[in-house]
């Protein structure tokens, strides 16, 4: 299996079996990000506690990239400090998710990244 094929498999796995999917009852922040181009939607919910992301869940509809990357990002941020999350770089996230995503598909991957970024910034203020 090439690295690309492995990444594709991971995406499909997250898409089929999304982690942290559902309603986060005690969420402190939530946001719905929407890509009108294709209708991809991610509703991201975070429970902040002090300086940390205590829990994160999402629900959504859309293509495999958008939903798998939402699933992946919830795993990535859970337990991290707010500053750590804020230090996450777009390109790093893309390289974790992406097997050579074209520019059109990059937007799908970034939907959940943008949602998290907005929630964290909003909390920090």
């Amino acid at each position, binding site marked *: 299996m090439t690295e690309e094929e492995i990444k594709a498999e991971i995406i499909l796995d997250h898409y089929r079996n999304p982690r942290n999917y*559902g309603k986060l009852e005690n969420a402190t922040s939530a946001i719905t990000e929407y890509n009108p181009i294709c209708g991809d939607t991610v509703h991201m919910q975070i429970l902040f506690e002090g300086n940390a992301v205590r829990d994160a869940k999402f629900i959504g*509809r859309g293509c495999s990239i958008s939903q798998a990357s939402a699933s992946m990002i919830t795993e990535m941020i859970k337990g991290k400090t707010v500053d750590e999350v804020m230090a996450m770089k777009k390109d790093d996230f893309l390289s974790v998710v992406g097997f050579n995503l074209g520019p059109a598909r990059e937007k799908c991957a970034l939907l959940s990244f943008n949602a998290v970024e907005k929630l964290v910034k909003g909390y920090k203020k």
Partner: protein
Amino acid sequence: MINPERIKKDFPIFSNNPDLCYLDSAATTQKPRQVVDAIENYYYSCNSNVHRGIYKISEDATNRFESSRENISKFIGSRDPRQVVFTRNTTESLNLLAYTLGKSLHAGDEILLSTMEHHSNMIPWQFLREKGVIVKYADITPEGTLDLHDLTGKMTKKTKIVSLTHVSNVLGCINPVNEIAKIAHDNSSLFVVDGAQSVPHMPIDVERMNCDFLAFSGHKMLGPAGIGGLYGRFDLLDNLPPFMGGGEMILNVSLDGATWNETPLKFEAGTPNIEGAIGLSAAVDYLRKLGMDNVRNHEKELIGYTMKRASEVEDLIFYGPRNPEMHGGVFTFNIGDVPAFDLERDLSERSVSISSNGIHPHDTATIMDRDDIAIRSGHHCAMPLMTRLGVSATSRASFYVYNSKEDVDRFFAAINDVKVAFAK
């Protein structure tokens, strides 16, 4: 009769990309050598500004530009070239109308569209809400055609304009424009036709159709991007105020105001897309040589074959009328159900996996692209129609003169690949 294999030879993109199966002509078409050569010939023999030059190459350029107008005018059945305004595309043609017709509309006046309209035949009219104009929408039938009953029901004495697409870029349905022209005129409404998906694909005769205006795009009919047309009945066009101001569209200018040039130049402010017009005229020549009846029949055959094969594929949902006679060369589909996001419902279904409802069109297009098949996926600039159909997006394969049954076969093979890739 159309011979796609022979036609393909006129399109160098196919020899440069021998594996390309291009099924996105409803978005934009490929260009034959004849069109590109006409543009190059203009650049290298008589490129110059039109209308005002008193030297040989400028007169040559002006002749080519104005005879392009005449050629395009004839192609759509207009008897007078002054009835064709050059614009950038269908979108600008419709904006020109909304801005200029809009000037004489008042609060309470109504404009009647349909839920299947492209954004370009929706937003410009919605702009007029600012002044109290009411925009109404005729619905579609469960079969995916225009609901004529609903259309007539929504027409009132206040309906000043009826603006409808001739062929839907999603449903593929061919709307009965001749009949609607009569209904609209009996109601003293103007009838505007969005011809973006019909002018390239079937014989068009504006006089017989009896529409008041018709908008179309060059890039969807083998011509260049950046050039389009607005046909308008001469007396109507002639009575419209100008849209943009500037060079070319004036007769006389002083510091205190200006008077306007004759129709259609009144609507063509600034240096026009001369090479674009010449390229579009070459495209029209190319299509005329093929014969627009043949073009339509070819696409009818392809869409008929496609729908027949589609009905044999499990989970393949497709849209628009089942009768190929009423269906243009546009095949819009989904693999499984792809509903729009709904916070309340989706929150309450939290145990349900996201992937349980079919394959998202983006994924379909990506997998197809790996097989070198170019299809479109998304909202196709028809979001309200997506909403109406209860989907977040769809995929679309669309045909033109260079497509063959082999392309359709490759498409269905790829559908299978998509299903395998996303099999649970």
